[in-house]
């Protein structure tokens, strides 16, 4: 560091006049830092490398989806498209065939919306009430149920298909939208309940006591006191459920019928219905289209997500 450069003129003046300043010669103020300090190089270098690893697949997807098939066969996957074509996107959205149906993903999109919206609402509603009961209104045995629930989070979904099929059949809900909503609520319950429980536990208990003295009952406290305070955790939970349910394939395919197949099933059909060569560009476009909704959700509300996680999720 060249001191003569970093010392402002004022310190020179300090030597001449008593009134000017009480500063002595030597370092003052902020320590000068090079923008290219080794620390910065390491930090930003590492972050940059990591970012590259995370971004490359997205780049490949986008680039590939904009290329024509001949170009894909020739070039490498990282080269930018020589000729941008939106054909694959159109095809993926509206023309790709599965069996006899050649309307691409478009049909699945609305099915996915129809499945995701009520499933998210119902599962969050159930989980938040559960979490609230577990945090504030414990009763004998509530922890045992909760423990079972948490262990349930580790059970592979495939294992549970048969029992669930039987249960839904007995309830007469098999194949209906209600059945699917129920399934999503069930499998979202462990993690969601855990999130809500931890969040409600972290709220001051005295608030709950005050409301009880004010005469509010179970539901009044939930709706009028707890709910308005739970925005962060609702955001987290909503994001997790939306992406989880939107991305679900297994339940979507097992518990619906072809006319209500969600987008992921269409995607699987498009990607796996190989007609001659694999149309990678169409596959990538379809993939991007399918992932668009959760991606947008994350891009828009990622900040809230992190804040919400900090607000309640990490507390054991």
């Amino acid at each position: 560091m060249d001191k003569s450069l970093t010392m402002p003129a004022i310190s020179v003046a300090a030597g001449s006049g008593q009134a000017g300043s009480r500063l002595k010669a030597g370092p003052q103020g902020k320590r000068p830092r090079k923008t290219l300090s080794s620390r910065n190089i390491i930090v930003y270098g590492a972050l940059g490398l990591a970012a590259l690893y995370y971004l490359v697949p997205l780049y490949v997807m986008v680039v590939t989806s904009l290329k024509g098939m001949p170009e894909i066969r020739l070039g490498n996957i990282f080269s930018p498209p020589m000729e941008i074509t939106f054909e694959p996107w159109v095809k993926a959205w509206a023309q790709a065939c599965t069996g006899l149906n050649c309307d691409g993903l478009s049909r699945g999109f609305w099915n996915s919306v129809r499945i995701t919206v009520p499933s998210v609402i119902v599962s969050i509603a159930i989980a938040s009430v559960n979490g609230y009961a577990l945090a504030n209104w414990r009763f004998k045995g509530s922890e045992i149920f909760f423990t079972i629930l948490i262990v349930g989070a580790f059970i592979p979904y495939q294992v549970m298909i048969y029992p669930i099929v039987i249960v839904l059949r007995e309830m007469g809900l098999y194949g209906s939208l209600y059945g699917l909503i129920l399934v999503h609520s069930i499998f979202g319950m462990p993690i969601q309940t855990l999130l809500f429980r931890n969040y409600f536990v972290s709220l001051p208990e005295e608030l709950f006591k005050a409301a009880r003295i004010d005469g509010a009952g179970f539901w009044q406290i939930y709706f009028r006191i707890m709910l308005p305070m739970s925005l962060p955790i609702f955001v987290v939970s909503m994001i997790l459920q939306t992406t989880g349910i939107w991305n679900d394939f297994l339940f979507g395919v097992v518990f619906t019928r072809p006319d209500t197949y969600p987008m992921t099933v269409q995607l699987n059909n498009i990607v796996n219905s190989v007609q001659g060569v694999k149309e990678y560009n169409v596959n990538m476009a379809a993939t991007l289209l399918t992932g668009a909704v959760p991606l947008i959700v994350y891009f828009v509300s990622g900040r809230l997500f992190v804040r919400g996680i900090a607000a309640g999720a990490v507390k054991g």
Partner: protein
Amino acid sequence: TDLEVTHWWTSGGEAAAVAELAKAFNATGNKWVDGAIAGSGGTARPIMISRITGGDPMAATQFNHGRQAEELVQAGLMRDFTDLAKKEGWDKIVRPAGLLKSCTFEGKIYCVPLNIHSWQWLWLSNDAFKKAGVAVPKNWDEYVAAAPALEKAGIVPLAVGGQAWQSTGLFSVLTVAIGGKEIYQKVYGDKDAKVAAGPEMAKVFKAADDARKMSKGTNVQDWNQATNMVITGKAGGQIMGDWAQGEFQLAGKKAGVDYTCLPGLGVNEVISTAGDAFYFPVLKDAAKTKAQEALASSLLDAKTQVAFNLKKGSLPVRGDVDLAAANDCMKKGLEILAKGNVVTSTDQLITQDTQKQLEDLMSQFFANTSITAEEAQKRFVAIFSKAG
């Protein structure tokens, strides 16, 4: 009436063939609602079974001939078509008779056979051999001999897709071709562990080892991608069922000119009679139940049979239809069929459970060169000694 039909025919040729079925059914005034599930029977079957057992069945669904739907029939979930069969005289038109037999359970008929598929085909790319400077082989041994030349020309000698059923099917083809009809019948049919462990089978495993070496570098998953390698000359050949023909056709290739087909690998001209059949779950809705019958008859209709099988590349289940439009390869198949050189397909002989175990063995064998042919045979024997 709208009938939902589920199946796993999603490749180009298959889809075109299904369109024929739909056309024929729609002509009866009903509507075919297509429920295709991509990704082969492995993905599709659990879904179909879940829906049938879950009480929300489709109107009709594809299964392979054989033992796949046995228990559903047993459980009374499938519709009995004996009456319709009698009326339309299916026993007279369906050929070979074994096909209808595998639809029969306790004397009642529960499915409609749709086509005959045979596994025993070797598809060779004429272009590839030209490029490698060797003659198109006439049988398996010539083919193995030509492999080094193909390799030198940068061509994969034998395309084998990564999916397990492909290598398993390939092995059964080798068994019939190298081992012969009796050995095949003893091993797959009678589950004779001694034969399975015998020298004849060892030869088959030796051939499988060759096939494994020849297939190195395929790097594709789906069967039709492998077929595509043959079509484009990237691979010398592929052992695959006659459904591969649909792909050649769709690509505008001509049998004998662009590609060569060798039934029974050119060694033992025998074909197995596997195939697809449609099952009809029991429905509550009367109108749909009625429409199921319309669908069943339309499937066996002579015109449908021709149109469908031409597109699919398989053989019709009716002996009385005119297949003038068939190409060389198909005609070869018809001839063999007419000669009665048939074996029962593995689907009918072994359970899905055994099939899956075989697949595990074969896919591992083809993927992993550290497993020797002897080792594989030992495990093969173990599977059959327990198979039911």
